[in-house]
C-alpha cells in the first residue's frame, strides 16, 4: 500500500526548458546492438565482489570471486568504452573508503591514488568526510578516461584519469543551497544519505543528471557549471513541504538509451516518467495493482525500447518493511511507457520470500532479447534471458547484495 503523498506544485523554470535538445539522428540515437555479446554480471556485496561470466546462451555462469573478501563493495562497474576496465567502490568496515581499479577484468587491482574526498573545511568548521563512494558512472564515450562518483554523505566527484585520482566536481559539494537540500546524515537512508543515479546524456557530455536520497533530481546542460532541480510533479510524504527539495527522495533514475529525452524514476513516493523538454514528472505507477503499489528501489530501462521498463516493488506500508509485498517477489514490466504494468514473476518463489532488492541491484544487458539480473539482500542472484518472462537463480549463499551490473564483453 503506497503512503499518502502530496504533489510538488513547484514548476521550476529551468535552463533546460529553454534548451533546444539536440535531435539525434536515427544513427546516433539507436544504440549499437549487442546481440550475442558475452555478458559478465558484476556483483557488489557487503563482504566482497564477484564476477559471473555467462556463456553465449546466458544459461551457464562461471563465478569469479570473491574479490576483496571482507570489504564492503558498494558498486562494481565495467567500463563500456573498453570492455575490460573495472572500478570498485569499496570500504573495509573500519577503514576509510577507496576505489579499486582493474584494467584486466579483475585479474589484478590497484587502489586509487586519491579517492573521492571532500575539500578541507576552513579553519573552525567541522567539514564533511566521505563515508563511502556509493555510485560510479563512466563518462561520455568522447571522454574515455572520465568517470563520475556519487558518495555518502552526498557528494559529486569526477576522475579524468580512469579512476586513479578524483576531484570534487561542479561545486555542489560546498554550495550553500545544495548543502541545505542535502540535509544531514540524520535525514538519509539507514546507512547514510546518498548521491546516486549519475547520468551522462549519450548525445552530449555536457548534459548530466544526478539524484540524491534527500535532495531531489538535478540537471546540468553546461558540464556541471550550473545545475537546476527537476522536481515538478514529484510527490513527497504527506506532511512534508513538497517545495523543499530536501524532502524529495528519488531512489533510482534511469535515462533511456534509445530516447535520451525520456527518463524513468523509482521514487520513495511512486514510479515516474519524464519526457524532455518537459520539466514535469508524471506518476505512471498509479496503474500498478493497488495491492502491490508502486514503491520500490530499482529501475531498469530497455536499451532499445523507451516504452519498456522494469521495477521490483517492495512493501512501503506502515513501518516500511521494504520486502516483497505479501512475501511474493515479482518484477513488473511496462511496455507502453507506464500506461499499464504486467507482473513478471515466473520462476520466482510464489510465497514466503521476503526479499529486498536495493536500488542498484537490478540491471539489464544489451542483448536481444534483453537479459535481466537482480540480487537480493539475502544473497541470491537471479536472471532472465527473455526480458523477465522466466527467471532462473544463478547463485545463492552470497553475502548481502548491494549492486548488480551487467557488462558486455567484446
Amino acid at each position: 500500500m503506497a503512503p499518502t503523498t502530496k504533489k510538488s506544485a513547484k514548476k521550476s523554470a529551468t535552463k533546460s526548458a529553454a534548451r533546444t535538445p539536440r535531435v539525434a539522428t536515427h544513427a546516433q540515437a539507436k544504440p549499437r546492438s549487442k546481440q550475442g555479446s558475452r555478458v559478465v554480471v558484476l556483483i557488489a556485496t557487503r563482504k566482497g565482489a564477484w564476477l559471473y561470466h555467462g556463456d553465449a546462451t546466458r544459461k551457464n555462469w562461471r563465478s569469479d570471486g570473491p574479490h576483496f573478501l571482507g570489504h564492503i563493495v558498494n558498486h562494481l562497474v565495467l567500463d563500456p568504452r573498453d570492455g575490460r576496465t573495472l572500478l570498485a567502490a569499496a570500504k573495509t568496515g573500519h577503514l576509510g573508503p577507496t576505489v579499486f581499479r582493474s584494467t584486466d577484468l579483475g585479474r589484478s587491482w590497484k587502489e586509487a591514488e586519491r579517492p573521492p574526498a571532500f575539500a578541507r573545511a576552513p579553519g573552525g568548521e567541522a567539514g564533511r568526510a566521505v563515508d563511502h563512494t556509493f555510485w560510479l558512472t563512466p563518462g561520455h564515450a568522447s571522454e574515455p578516461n572520465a568517470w563520475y562518483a556519487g558518495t555518502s554523505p552526498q557528494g559529486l566527484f569526477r576522475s579524468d584519469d580512469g579512476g586513479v585520482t578524483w576531484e570534487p566536481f561542479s561545486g555542489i559539494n560546498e554550495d550553500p543551497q545544495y548543502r541545505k537540500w542535502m540535509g544531514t546524515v540524520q535525514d538519509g537512508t539507514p546507512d547514510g544519505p546518498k548521491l546516486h543515479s549519475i547520468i551522462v546524456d549519450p548525445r552530449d557530455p555536457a548534459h548530466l543528471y544526478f539524484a540524491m536520497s534527500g535532495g531531489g533530481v538535478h540537471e546540468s546542460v553546461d558540464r556541471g557549471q550550473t545545475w537546476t532541480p527537476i522536481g515538478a510533479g514529484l510527490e513527497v510524504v504527506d506532511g512534508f513541504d513538497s517545495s523543499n527539495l530536501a524532502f524529495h527522495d528519488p531512489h533510482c533514475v534511469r535515462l533511456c538509451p534509445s530516447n535520451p529525452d525520456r527518463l524513468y524514476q523509482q521514487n520513495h513516493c511512486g514510479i515516474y516518467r519524464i519526457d524532455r523538454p518537459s520539466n514535469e514528472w508524471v506518476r505512471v505507477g498509479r496503474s500498478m495493482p493497488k495491492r502491490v503499489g508502486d514503491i520500490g528501489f530499482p529501475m531498469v530501462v530497455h536499451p532499445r525500447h523507451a516504452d519498456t521498463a522494469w521495477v521490483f516493488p517492495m512493501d512501503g506500508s506502515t513501518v516500511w518493511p521494504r520486502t516483497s509485498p505479501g512475501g511474493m517477489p515479482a518484477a513488473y514490466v511496462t511496455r507502453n511507457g507506464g500506461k499499464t504494468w504486467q507482473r513478471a514473476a515466473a520462476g520466482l518463489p510464489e510465497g514466503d520470500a521476503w526479499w529486498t532488492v536495493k536500488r542498484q541491484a537490478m540491471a539489464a544487458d544489451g542483448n536481444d532479447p534483453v537479459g535481466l539480473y537482480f540480487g537480493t539482500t539475502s544473497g541470491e542472484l537471479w536472471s532472465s534471458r527473455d526480458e523477465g518472462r522466466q527467471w532462473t537463480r544463478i547463485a545463492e549463499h552470497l553475502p548481502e547484495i548491494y549492486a548488480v551490473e551487467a557488462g558486455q564483453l567484446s
Partner: protein
Amino acid sequence: MNVLIPAPLRSYTGQRQVEANGTSLAAVLADLDRQYPGIRFRMIDEQDRMRPHVRFFVNGAQTFDLSRPLRSTDEVLIVQALSGG
C-alpha cells in the same frame, strides 16, 4: 620508531611492523603515507579526524591527538576496533 600495523592495513605495508619517522603522531602518519601511499586516508579522514574504530596508542597509552609529540624511541600501535558485522 616502530609502528605496529593492524591486519587490515598490511596490504599496504606487507608486514606487521614498520619504521617511520616524525616528531608528532601526525608527522609519523605522514611518513607512513609517504612510504605506503594511501594508507593515511584509510585511518584519517579529509578533515584530519581519526576515523571511527581506529585507535592509536603511544607506548601503550591511547591518544586521540594527532599533534601528540613523539620521540624516536616511542612505539606507535595502530589498532582496529573489534566491532563489525
